[in-house]
C-alpha cells in the first residue's frame, strides 16, 4: 500500500500550509484541493481553518463544498475553526449556520477575571473516553490552542480542556473527528494525533 492520501480541503484559511507541512513530516501524501472528486477519493479528509465562522462557511458554500463534505464517508478531521464548522451553528458573526455534521453549537468563551480571551497557548488535555485518535496522547499532554469561540462538552466529546469553563478539545462521532487545538503546531502531541488520524483510525 502506498502512502495514505489526505485531501486537505481548501477552505481559504491561512493555516493550510502549516497543516500540509505537518502531514508531510509524518509521511502522508497531503494535497490541497477543492475538487469534489479528489476529496471523495482520498483516504482521509481534513478540514483546516483559521479565522471567523461566517467567512469560513461562505468560502465552503462558494466552492460548492457543503454537500461534498456531507458525502464524505472516510475519516474526516476538522481542525480549529474546521472543527467548529462541523457543528450545527456558531454564535460567531451574529450567528452562522454551519455544516451540521455534528450535533451542538459553538459559543463564545466568557470573559472572566484572570482569564484571557482569546484562549491562546498550551493547555492540558483530559480524556473523557477512549478513542483510537487520542490513544497515543499522555494524560495532561499540552496542545496549542488559539480561539475565542468554543464547543461545550457534548456526548461526542473525547478530550476536554479548561479555560473559563470546560470545552471540547477533541470530538468524535462515527467517522467524523474534530480537534479544537492546532495539531500542526502542537509539537509531539499534535504530530501523534495527526499520525494516528492518518494511520490508526479505521474507516
Amino acid at each position, binding site marked *: 500500500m502506498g502512502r495514505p492520501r489526505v485531501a486537505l480541503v481548501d477552505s481559504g484559511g*491561512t*493555516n493550510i*500550509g*502549516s497543516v500540509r*507541512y*505537518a502531514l*508531510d*513530516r509524518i509521511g502522508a501524501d497531503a494535497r490541497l484541493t477543492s475538487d469534489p472528486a479528489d476529496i471523495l477519493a482520498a483516504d482521509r479528509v481534513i478540514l483546516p481553518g*483559521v*479565522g*471567523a465562522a461566517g467567512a469560513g462557511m461562505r468560502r465552503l458554500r462558494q466552492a460548492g463544498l457543503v454537500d461534498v463534505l456531507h458525502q464524505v464517508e472516510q475519516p474526516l478531521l476538522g481542525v480549529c475553526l474546521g472543527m467548529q464548522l462541523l457543528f450545527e451553528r456558531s454564535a460567531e458573526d451574529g450567528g452562522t449556520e454551519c455544516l451540521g455534521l455534528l450535533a451542538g453549537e459553538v459559543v463564545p468563551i466568557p*470573559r472572566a477575571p*484572570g*482569564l*484571557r*480571551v*482569546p*484562549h*491562546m*497557548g*498550551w*493547555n*492540558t*488535555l*483530559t*480524556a*473523557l*473516553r*477512549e478513542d483510537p485518535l*487520542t*490513544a*497515543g*496522547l*499522555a*494524560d495532561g*499532554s*499540552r496542545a*496549542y490552542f*488559539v*480561539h*475565542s469561540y468554543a464547543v461545550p462538552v457534548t456526548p461526542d466529546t473525547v*478530550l476536554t*480542556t*479548561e*479555560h473559563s469553563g470546560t470545552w471540547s478539545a477533541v470530538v468524535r462521532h462515527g467517522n467524523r473527528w474534530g480537534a479544537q487545538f*492546532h495539531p*500542526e*503546531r*502542537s*509539537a*509531539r*502531541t*499534535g*504530530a501523534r494525533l495527526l499520525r494516528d488520524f492518518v494511520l490508526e483510525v479505521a474507516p
Partner: protein
Amino acid sequence: MTLARRIIACLDVRDGRVVKGTRFRDHQDMGGITELAARYSAEGVDELVFYDITASPQGRRVDVDWIDRVAREIDIPFCVAGGISSVEDARAVLLAGADKVSVNTPATRRPELVAELAREFGSQCVVVGVDSLRDEDGQWRIRQLTGDPDATRALNTTTLAWVERVQELGAGEVVLNAMGSDGVRQGYDVEQLRAVRQVCGVPLIASGGAGSAQHFIDVFREADVDGALAAGVFHSGELAIEDLKRQLQVAGIEVRLDDSSAAVAP
C-alpha cells in the same frame, strides 16, 4: 488554571540569517534561521518570534522564503514581526506559514491597520507590539521606529490608552516592550506590566529585561502576564529553556514540560 505561561524566544533576522547585537548596530551572525528555530523548538520553547530587522526602517517588505522554510521545519507556533504594514503583507506572511503577525510602528501611524488585519484574518493572528518608555512626567508613552535609535520618535499617546485602543480595534495579543529595561538584563518592568495588565483583557507578553530565571518568576507572579519573551539571555546560553521551565515549575508556575509518554487514561 491549566493554561501554561509561555516562554517565547525572539530571533532577529537580517538578510536570511539570525543576527544579534544591539538592535541595529554591530550585528553578529548567529546562524541559519531554520537551524536555530529547530534547536529552540527541540529545547522546549513554547513559541518563537522572528523580528525581521531588514524589513521595517527602510520600508522593505518581509522576505517570505525563510518563513516557508521555518513552517516546514518546526511544529510550534511562530510569529513574524517587522515590515508588515498592510493586509497584503500580512497575508503573504501568514500563507507562508506564520501563525501570527506582529505590527508596531505601522499601527501607530495608521491604527485602522489593526482592525483590517483582525477582520481579514481573525484577532488570534494579530499581535500588536508596543514600545514604551516612561517620560519625565511619570507617564508611560509609546515610541515608534524604535529599530533605529536615530529615527525613534516619542508619541503623545500614553501606553495604557494605546493598549486599550488596539484591543478595541481587534488585537488578539499585546507584546509590551519596556524600553527602559530592554537589553540591560535587570529584570522585566514589573510595575509597568502590572499597570498594563489592568487594562489588557487579551494575552499580554512581557518583553525587555530578562536576565535570569528569577526575572521570569517575578514577572509571572507579580504582573500576571501570559508569556515572557527574551532574546539575549537565551542566545548566549546563559539560561537554557528546560532549566528555566523546571525552575518555574518549582516556583508553582504552570509551564509546558516534556510532552511525550504513556497513553491517556479516561
